[in-house]
């Protein structure tokens, strides 16, 4: 018997085995399983289509490319352009800087203050009768809709002579419209504290009590316990809160409209500029609007990727 025959026999054996396996797997594919996969696939398509449509639209010429192709079809070569991205980046650039100027500090400060508040409400020794009202007020703060506070908010900032207080900045050459950015920062910190506090509170309530007691017996004061034990241990929760808060603040249009109001202001945040991007008397430039939306969403994506690993930890706890 030659080697070739052996190989042939071997190959036949393999094919048969492969066939068996295929048959077994096909048999396992009953109607229910097919249904589940079909439903999952349909749902995925349903959720991804808008994003995909937006992405391909952003590369199309307007109006020729947009009107002559299907919304979710990729652009044919003759309608392909990067022009819209260039325009979007130029138009949104200063808005992105302005947004970052209040979103970054507001996110960090509200997360920190929320963490302090949660630490005080969970680990400090005070009577429930005093603790309960403070907690109740903070929790109620989460449920106040932004719309309900718009008028009091603008009156509040109208009553505060913030522009005068910040005179040194204007002397240095900063346009005085940036008062709006400072107002936005403080407003977002105030409105962010309740939700941050609640997120941290659930985390701190589950902290090992013995660990905190051990630290106190080790001679650490209440403040030092926070600084050296509780703060470092709550990194995963900080990731969750930072991502959540940053997305909220970055995407918020309502406060920006009230406190900065015009897209022509030098301090206009990205959301204000985006709202008017691609609108003109001749109609809407859909391709530009899509490109603009993606550019404006980029920072939130970057933040998510930066803290993604800790975020997963934090959500799991």
């Amino acid at each position, binding site marked *: 018997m030659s080697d070739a025959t052996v190989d042939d026999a071997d190959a036949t054996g393999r094919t048969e085995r492969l066939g068996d396996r295929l048959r077994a797997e096909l048999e396992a594919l009953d109607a229910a399983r097919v249904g589940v996969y079909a439903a999952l696939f349909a749902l995925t398509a349903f959720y991804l289509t808008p994003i995909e449509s937006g992405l391909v639209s952003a590369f199309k010429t307007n109006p020729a490319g947009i009107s002559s192709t299907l919304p979710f079809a990729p652009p044919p070569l003759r309608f392909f352009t990067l022009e819209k991205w260039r325009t979007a980046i130029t138009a949104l650039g200063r808005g992105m800087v302005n947004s970052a100027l209040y979103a970054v500090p507001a996110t960090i400060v509200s997360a920190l203050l929320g963490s302090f508040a949660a630490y005080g409400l969970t680990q400090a020794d005070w009577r429930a009768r005093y603790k309960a009202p403070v907690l109740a007020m903070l929790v109620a703060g989460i449920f106040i809709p932004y719309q309900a506070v718009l008028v009091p908010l603008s009156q509040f900032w109208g009553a505060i002579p913030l522009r005068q207080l910040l005179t040194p900045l204007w002397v240095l050459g900063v346009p005085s419209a940036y008062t709006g950015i400072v107002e936005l920062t403080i407003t977002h910190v105030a409105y962010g504290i309740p939700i941050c506090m609640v997120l941290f509170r659930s985390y701190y309530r589950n902290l*090992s009590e*013995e660990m905190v*007691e*051990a630290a106190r*017996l*080790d001679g*650490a004061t209440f403040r030092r316990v926070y600084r050296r034990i509780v703060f470092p241990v709550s990194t995963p929760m900080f990731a969750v809160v930072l991502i959540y808060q940053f997305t909220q603040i970055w995407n918020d249009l309502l406060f920006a409209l009230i406190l900065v109001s015009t897209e022509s202001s030098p301090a206009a945040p990205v959301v204000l500029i985006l709202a008017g991007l691609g609108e003109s008397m001749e109609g809407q430039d859909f391709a530009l609007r899509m490109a603009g939306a993606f550019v404006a969403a980029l920072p939130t994506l970057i933040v998510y990727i930066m803290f993604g690993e800790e975020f997963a930890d934090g959500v799991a706890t």
Partner: protein
Amino acid sequence: MAQLELDAVRKVFTDDDGSDIVAVDDVTVDIEDGEFLVLVGPSGCGKSTTLRMVAGLETASGGDIRLGGRSIVGQKPQDRDIAMVFQSYALYPHMTSRENMSFGLEESTDMTDEEIDERVQNAAELLDIPELLDRKPAELSGGQQQRVALGRAIVRDPEVFLMDEPLSNLDAKLRSQMRTELQRIQEDLDTTTVYVTHDQTEAMTMGDRIAVLDGGELQQAGTPLECYHRPANRFVAGFIGEPSMNFFDATVRGDRLVADRFEYGLREAAVNDVAGAEGVTLGIRPEDVEVTPGTEPADDNEFATVVDVVEPMGNENAVYLGFGADPTDPFVATVGGMRRVEAGQRVIARFPPDAIHLFDATTGEALHSRSLEDADPAEPRI
């Protein structure tokens, strides 16, 4: 290092509905400088609460706690110069073993980094863990975490060590190893130590003295052998010793005890001790019951019994004996491991008159304890 005094310490918790729960009731114990005291009792007896009051983690509702003669009630935990080892070890998860151990010194002293390093290194060598210093708790086994937790207490060089069931999360073999090691370390350092456990074996083997708590009240404080041979009451007698002491309720009729299943003849000393009492509880330790083959009791200290169950343990057998043919309510005797005893066998059980304990049936107070005359006088057992 200093003497620790607990003077009528009380702890009352107020429940949500306003009712008071007394967790610790007038506990008074003096712990000598350098002494190893074990607080032992069943769960919920108030032993951990007592320890936490010494640490300052709970506020005492009454009484006084003095360390080296000065009251520490009202002082914050961080001002008490006390180190505690927790059941869960309570290590700081984000710090390495070295950082865990130096944390206390950084927070409570103004030692330089070099001095702290040296202390940590010495403690690590004492505990045989220098190679683990740069690992984080998650990378350590339970036994290793236990050592780091001990190290964290040792480097502080405190007046008092408090240990709250530190060995209960370890497996049996490691536990007995750490038990010996803890004793060695405590002897080396000669630091006053209060150790809480529910395990009477730990209490017997580790303590210079043990304090038995039940229902928040101190039942007895004494050396392990005192508690074993001269239990103050029925609770201590039943709690200390494994297997537990056998108890039989009986009434006194002159120089005889009449129980449900048997009558027992008392010696003169015992008769005098129970004078005036009507209902008593007869107690005898399993190892004091003498088991011999046979069916005919020779006197009123011997009983005809039937072997119900035998639990061989190698070095000895725990034999469950029932009176007559009825195997309900068996009592336990331990016999040598080499002796052959089988279920169903008829044997004579003898309760030697000098080994019995008698307790008041209502109060549980000890009326008569076993005599220790057979103890070697050259080496007093207490």
